[in-house]
């Protein structure tokens, strides 16, 4: 499909960042009459289970579009979006058609109300994105983040991205603004629409379950319970298979098995936040594991090297001093 995404120009894309996230959209949050230009970045790292497609010999494979009538290879320019009506009529929908549907909505997130965050049921939350300030001054950005943090509120608004309208809750997460997309009410089923029976809890049974819940209630989350076991098993398998050189391919042009998320610009979240928001910002994953960007890896390496050098220097210095002392004796 012809790509419609708008990506940020302000953001540099380092080659092969250790923790890439994707940049999707640039626009403006309006908070009353205050405008805050922002870039939208994925707040979720992809799982480490993505696979590439190759043939038996390891040649990289890709997807190509063909016309079903002519058996002819098609370029992006040969493709159009079609909508099939109930009567089987095909309606062509162009990029311009989509642009014309709601031009004002595609570049603005207008915060139209603020709600207590805990009032939004988890069912509504779809996908989280980080917002990075895109303008010259991040002051208005910090103001909104601080206000959300202090009031415990989420700003609600909507915007259009890649031909879809999203309802969003803007929240502050440790000083970074996040836009969590929400489902619309008509996208959620209800116990009534599923025709589930009416609740009729029996008091005696309820207290039995309350007891069972108490026995299993803990104060804290154990993130190891939320670890990616599939990714771990896969990593182990890969480690074993790579020992045999026949299994290892060296080639460029490897393509993802599923096309999801392709096309968006890959960026280093920590590098972006340090540049646009706060120069010491640190990004880690929920496991609290090592910082997860190339920049940080570099910084750490550098820090290790300099302390090692310093240590070596001090060692030499004290040794020399000791020698001098001895010599003076």
């Amino acid at each position: 499909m012809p790509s419609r995404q708008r990506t940020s120009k302000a953001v540099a894309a380092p080659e092969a960042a250790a923790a890439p996230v994707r940049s999707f959209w640039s626009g403006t949050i309006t908070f009353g009459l205050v405008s805050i230009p922002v870039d939208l970045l994925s707040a979720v790292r992809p799982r480490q289970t993505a696979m590439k497609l190759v043939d038996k010999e390891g040649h990289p494979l890709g997807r190509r579009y063909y016309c079903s009538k002519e058996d002819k290879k098609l370029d992006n320019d040969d493709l159009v979006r079609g909508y099939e009506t109930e009567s089987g009529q095909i309606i062509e929908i162009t990029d311009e058609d989509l642009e014309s549907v709601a031009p004002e909505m595609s570049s603005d997130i207008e915060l139209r109300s603020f709600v207590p965050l805990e009032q939004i049921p988890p069912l509504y939350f779809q996908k989280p994105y980080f917002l990075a300030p895109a303008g010259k001054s991040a002051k208005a950005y910090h103001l909104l983040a601080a206000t959300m943090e202090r009031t415990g509120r989420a700003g609600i608004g909507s915007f259009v991205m890649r031909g879809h309208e999203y309802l969003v809750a803007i929240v502050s997460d440790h000083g970074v603004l996040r836009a969590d997309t929400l489902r619309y009410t008509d996208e959620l089923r209800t116990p009534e629409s599923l025709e589930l029976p009416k609740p009729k809890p029996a008091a005696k049974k309820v207290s039995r379950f309350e007891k069972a819940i108490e026995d299993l209630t803990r104060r804290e989350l154990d993130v190891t319970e939320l670890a990616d076991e599939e990714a771990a098993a896969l990593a182990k398998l890969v480690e074993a298979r790579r020992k045999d050189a026949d299994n290892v391919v060296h080639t460029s042009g490897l393509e993802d098995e599923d096309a999801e998320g392709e096309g968006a610009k890959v960026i280093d979240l920590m590098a972006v936040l340090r540049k646009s928001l706060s120069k010491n910002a640190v990004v880690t994953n929920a496991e609290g594991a090592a910082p997860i960007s190339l920049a940080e890896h570099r910084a750490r390496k550098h820090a290790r090297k300099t302390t090692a050098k310093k240590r070596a220097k001090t060692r030499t210095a004290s040794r020399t001093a000791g020698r001098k002392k001895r010599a003076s004796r």
Partner: protein
Amino acid sequence: MARAIWKGKLELGSHEIDVKMYSAVEDRTVHFRMLHKKDDAAVEQHIVRKDTGKDVAKEDIRKAFALDKTTAVILQPEDLASLVPPESREIQILRFVAPDVLGDQWFDRPYYLGPDADDGDYFALAAALERKHVIGIARWVMRKKRYVGALSALTGYLTLSTLRRADQVLSFSRVEPVKSETPHPNELKLAEQFVASITGDFEPEQWQNEYRQRLCKLIEAKARGEKIEPAPTKRRARQASLADSLRASIAAAKEKKVA
């Protein structure tokens, strides 16, 4: 009525509760098909070798895990089969925690659980969860895949949402604005006043997917061979100082309330 997509058994201490699982999401997306511009014929996807452009037969396609941009390890079908977890109906509850322990960014796809056969235990657990105000951390295997999830109660029913994995969810520290970008106490006060002036309850039914509605209208109009006027673009007011903009915002919000 939507059909159950799976049947499972909640394992909670010594209790076992049979449940049916239903997707809580109804797809309302306007779906398009990709067509060949010239003849409106459907488009087919072929898997080809990138260097020769030649089609590759399905049985010759392999999956490879990329170690970096130019190195990958080929895995054979039997390797991948060995990763498939053993089939099970159990939804294991590992622990209960306070709901605010899990941020919204963890939640992925929501499902409703419904009672299967006996509904006494089902509704009793839902009521107990609501009274204790906790959520359960769950693990299960469904359709050859492992899931982690959060079991919660909503209006007397059980929901099970899949959760993202621990290494997917990011967190921050040391975000400190430089002095020139730190908001003044006065600006914070005005911002809080403005937030208070348009604070309300979360009323999701007030929010309509306007874009989807307009898109459907456009499609209908095009089907009738009509043209549709593009929606007008709004102009944004010029940016004044932060404090002045906030004062004006509060005034505008007040005016709206009176009207």
